[in-house]
């Protein structure tokens, strides 16, 4: 199981703050595509992905048990 955390606009679009995916292994690029096509999250494209609280690159591999977060452009401060 991979837990995907959603924030800000993505959270509102999805109507929930997390999605559970029953997947053993997937790349960052693939999970972004999956979230766009299956969950219609418009902002995924311009978002970063964090795996276990670290920014990840498209080629990085996500495994079952990992916590993924979709990070749209930040606006703190």
């Amino acid at each position: 199981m991979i837990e995907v955390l959603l924030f800000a606009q993505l959270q509102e679009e999805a109507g929930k703050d997390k999605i559970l995916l029953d997947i053993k292994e997937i790349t960052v690029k693939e999970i972004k595509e999956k979230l766009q096509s299956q969950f219609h999250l418009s902002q995924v494209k311009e978002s970063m992905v964090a795996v276990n609280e670290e920014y990840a690159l498209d080629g990085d591999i996500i495994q079952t048990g990992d916590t993924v977060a979709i990070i749209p452009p930040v606006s703190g401060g």
Partner: protein
Amino acid sequence: MRDKLFEVVEDPISVDSLIKKVEDRNAGAITTFIGTVREITGKKKTIYLEYQAYKPMAEKMLAQIGKEINERWPDTKVAITHRIGSLDISAIAVVIAVSSPHRKPAYQANEYAIERIKQIVPIWKKEQWEDGEAWIGDQKENVPYPTGKPEIKDEDND
């Protein structure tokens, strides 16, 4: 118990408590940056702001900014607290405190911290206007992450 130098909180921030965290017998300068909720931006009148964070990662990233500062400007001490939740006009959203033996690094490191917060710390704000609301990103001003991910080092920063 040791004070946390890098924190995301839900209650009002005390500027004084951040100053205390960076005090040092060899500090000659302490700078603070206090980010407050501004009423007017362009032609829009803000009623309040709503901040959300990916809290554990946000605190990690704030600590990383502190580490970057200590590497670039030796002998500095840094503390950063960001508040989340609903914030009224003039409320304090973020406080950055930097101490240093001399004033120049205290200014430079402080400004570096706020620039980095706006690049890598997973915190978002939603503006509530009289006639609507929107989550704010800096999409209008910047390509979100030109190098594919937020720069962990940004040698050109000033």
